[in-house]
């Protein structure tokens, strides 16, 4: 039986704003399948986003949803999670949202290892504002503000997340949609800060400018460029040039989770006072 996406989509909120050929819809569907497979109670989910094309996603889903300011989804989500540690808090963010204007919040959420699932839709560009370069735009690529080719070095989001202290780090792509379900599901189930970088295509503001003839070309590029981490790790160094690993790239069990530590302190103080009384 075909999966019934409508059960999670708010009545009357489609069509979405995304362009034809945009891969965000693929990820959108993957998220809904995961929520269904994990049987999450939708009353217990808060989905929080910043600003950008990716950040419009929460508007379509039937959860508690919060569309905040550019780059700030994580601190809003932190306030929610720390207030209600037993709820599921999912953040949807673009590459610019998460690593440029929101970069500071990103590394600090990683450092706290707070139990939030962070889905970074990396399309290598500022989609919503018309194709300016982002901290992930590949070197040499054309962008509306890099008319001679990008001179800015780029972030490797999983490395950044791992270095900053996230305890679950994964990378998937819109092309490998079935694998994406597993990654998002693993991230949601993981206790701690989990980051999934999801490689996406923005044909409108990135592909067209950079010699991708069609959205399909961009998906085929993902197919050729991203290899399962196990396969990637076996390749000799000279063969990994221009390729990237995907899958669960880092996972640390048992790292202290922020809410547990905080409420552990609350409990300890309570016991101390009871002991004294």
């Amino acid at each position, binding site marked *: 039986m075909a999966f019934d996406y409508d059960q999670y989509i708010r009545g009357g909120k489609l069509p979405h704003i995304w362009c034809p050929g945009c891969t965000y819809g693929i990820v959108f569907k993957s998220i809904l399948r995961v929520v269904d497979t994990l049987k999450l109670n939708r009353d217990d989910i808060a989905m929080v986003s910043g600003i950008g094309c990716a950040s419009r996603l929460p508007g379509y889903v039937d959860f*508690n949803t919060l569309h905040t300011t550019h780059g700030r989804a994580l601190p809003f989500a932190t306030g929610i999670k720390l207030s209600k540690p037993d709820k599921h808090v999912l953040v949807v963010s673009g590459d610019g949202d998460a690593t440029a204007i929101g970069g500071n919040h990103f590394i600090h959420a990683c450092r706290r290892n707070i139990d939030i699932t962070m889905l970074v839709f990396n399309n290598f560009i500022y989609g919503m504002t018309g194709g300016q370069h982002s901290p992930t735009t590949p070197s040499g690529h054309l962008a509306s503000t890099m008319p001679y080719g990008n001179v800015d070095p780029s972030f490797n989001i999983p490395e950044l997340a791992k270095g900053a202290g996230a305890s679950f780090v994964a990378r998937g792509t819109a092309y490998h949609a079935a694998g994406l379900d597993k990654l998002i599901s693993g991230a949601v189930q993981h206790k701690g800060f989990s980051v999934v970088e999801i490689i996406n295509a923005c044909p409108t503001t990135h592909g067209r400018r950079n010699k991708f003839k069609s959205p399909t070309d961009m998906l085929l590029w993902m197919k050729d460029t991203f290899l399962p981490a196990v396969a990637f790790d076996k390749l000799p160094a000279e063969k990994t040039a221009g390729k990237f690993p995907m899958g669960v790239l880092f996972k640390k069990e048992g790292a202290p989770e922020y809410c547990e530590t905080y409420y552990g302190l609350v409990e300890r103080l309570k016991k101390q006072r009871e002991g004294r009384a």
Partner: protein
Amino acid sequence: MAQVKLLQGNEACAEGALYAGCTFFGGYPITPSTEVAEYLSRRLPLIGGVFIQMEDEIAAMAAVIGGSLTGRKALTATSGPGFSLKQENMGFAMLTEVPCVIVNVMRGGPSTGVPTGPGQSDIMQCRWGTHGDHPAICLTPAYVQEIFSETVRAFNLSERYRTPVIIAFDEVIGHMRERIEIPDPGVLPIINRTKPTCPPSEYLPYDDSKGDVPPMANFFEGYRYHVTGLNHGTDGFPVNASPRIHTDELRLMRKVEANKAEIIKYEEYLLEDAEVAIFAYGISGRSAKTAVEAARKEGIKAGLFRPLTIWPFPEEQIADLSGHVKGIVVPELSLGQIIFEVDRCAKGRCKLEGIYRVDGDPINPAQILAKVKEVM
């Protein structure tokens, strides 16, 4: 039995927040407001509340809004540079109508300015700090006891009108220690946000058909609604270029404008027969009171109008006052900001003289008295 304590203004602010039922503080350290955070970092974990020091003031403001959306009463405290950083998210809370309280212990500015000295030069930023048209409520206590009670009132107004409320005082009263009485629970009224009573399927988070302040559902209580900083319809979802935007923004302003009688609070001191009035708030209001007393001793009929609510501005009261006195003196720790509001309301009906000072010290009573004499 009320508790009697010797507290700093900043500590009294924290006590006021706890009295009001605040269980969430998100902050970032900055002089001269840091003691609010320090005090709550000790107290909140003891009552199961949340204290978090965020990575910056932008994040602190965001966390506070997130906490409030789950039903907690939430506070942040800051000064000058931090207050500037909070502005975008404060606007978010205004448009999305999420209650929260922001304390600004004012210092000199712009930029790093005078971190350890008092200032009153953020007062227009308290009104117009974030971009766009928006409502503003800002309270200006002058005594440690008042900081306590006005903090309670700030939470009440914020919950009542679903809007951020600013409390603005300054370094001197933030750090000054005075005797205060903390009343027993239940003595001061506590207001909590109105929750929806309809079934979730019928809930419209911004339905204004039954009043300007729609009931607010907390996250995770079954209502599953959408909150966005885009202009939105009654259902909370974005609208584009719609007449609804205009009427809804008018409603946001009306929440405050139409309830001025309830929101505006002030002290009038020896104004009945006054020939010269002083308009002053916060630390300048305290100096002004001493100046009035000194003037009266010399037989000069001076009086004081001391607003505890600076925004919305007590327009009618000042208009009325200006018709009864020869002049109004406005001392402020800025190069002249609030005097323009007084001018706007006095409309030339009396003389108007400012006293400005930004060197990191308060305006002293002698300065004010001298100006009062000039105006007589």
